[in-house]
């Protein structure tokens, strides 16, 4: 560890590779199976919900595109933090590391906002006879929501505001969506804690340094993995979800 050359990572192991890094890659392979099982559950249940709402009733692609972009950029910021550290710039490391963690928290903020938004979702249905919106949604509305609509319209208003939210209990889509994205969010949360720990730890002399870049490397691998899982979720759940042909 006393060797100043930060390029040398040869370890005294059979393969010359670091134990922990090997473990991290094996873990990421294993975690692929974890998310695959959740995604498979989501996909085989797609379109099998008995009541609404469906993805198309809730998703806002522009909003999620922004949070996806933020998470992608956090990956860049992460790798720049690592690059700064290997070049010996502790200051650069701190700046990029903090920005990574902040972007991670931003992503989580978006997710919390989105989850809340889904649970309190409402639809406006006009009270006219054979309202097209009502006909469109009729098969998705629960009997309680339908009677609520009729009760509101009976008061003589033009447009009823019908509660059309989704929790994990509402339907299969809610169940599979919240559990899949929730576990991704849990991974992000763990990542943020890890990144912040390293950030604060770096203020202790010698705790984070070019020679000990592996500590950061492992956190970075985990962080990028969380990002690529989101790349899949964004396409498969959000984009394909709103696209009706799928």
């Amino acid at each position, binding site marked *: 560890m006393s060797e100043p050359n930060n390029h040398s990572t040869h370890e005294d192991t059979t*393969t010359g590779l670091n134990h922990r890094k*090997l473990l991290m890659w094996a873990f990421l392979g294993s975690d692929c199976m974890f998310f695959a099982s959740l995604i498979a559950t989501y996909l*085989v249940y*797609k379109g099998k919900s008995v009541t609404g709402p469906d993805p198309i009733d809730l998703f806002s692609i522009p909003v999620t595109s922004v949070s996806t972009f933020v998470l*992608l950029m956090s990956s860049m910021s992460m790798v720049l933090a690592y*690059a700064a550290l290997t070049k010996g710039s502790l200051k650069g490391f701190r700046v990029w590391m903090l920005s990574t963690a902040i972007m991670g928290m931003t992503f989580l903020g978006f997710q919390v906002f989105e989850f809340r938004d889904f649970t309190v979702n409402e639809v406006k249905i006009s009270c006219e006879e054979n309202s097209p919106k009502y006909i469109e949604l009729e098969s998705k509305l629960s009997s309680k929501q339908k009677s609520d609509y009729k009760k509101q319209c009976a008061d003589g208003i033009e447009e009823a505001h019908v509660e059309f939210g989704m929790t994990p209990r509402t339907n299969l889509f809610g169940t599979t969506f919240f559990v899949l994205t929730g576990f991704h969010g849990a991974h992000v949360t763990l990542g943020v804690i890890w990144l912040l720990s390293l950030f604060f730890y770096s203020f202790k002399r010698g705790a984070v340094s070019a020679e000990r870049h592996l500590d950061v490397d492992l956190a970075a691998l985990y962080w990028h993995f969380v990002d*690529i899982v989101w790349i899949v979720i964004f*396409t498969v759940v959000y984009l394909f979800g709103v696209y009706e042909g*799928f």
Partner: protein
Amino acid sequence: MINEETSNHPTPKTYVLTALILSVLTAIEVGIFYITSLGYWMIPILAILSIGKFALVVMVYMHLKYETKLFTILFLSGLLLATAVVFALMILFRSF
């Protein structure tokens, strides 16, 4: 080769360039999404774009392209099996 593990890593310039490509790909994805005339073609196009993003992050940001094959084997064995299981289950549940 192995003890130069970090020295052949790309420069920050490559990282920023990769981020640029990733952003553009995401923009294309979202853009394509609004071209309804594509019909069913949208699914393979979006799939290929996101596989491209996935591969870029893994190869450049996670340095898999620059490091020992063993890491690639460990990761790919999980990733390919995972993909196979998803498709097998979708076929068994007649999701296609």
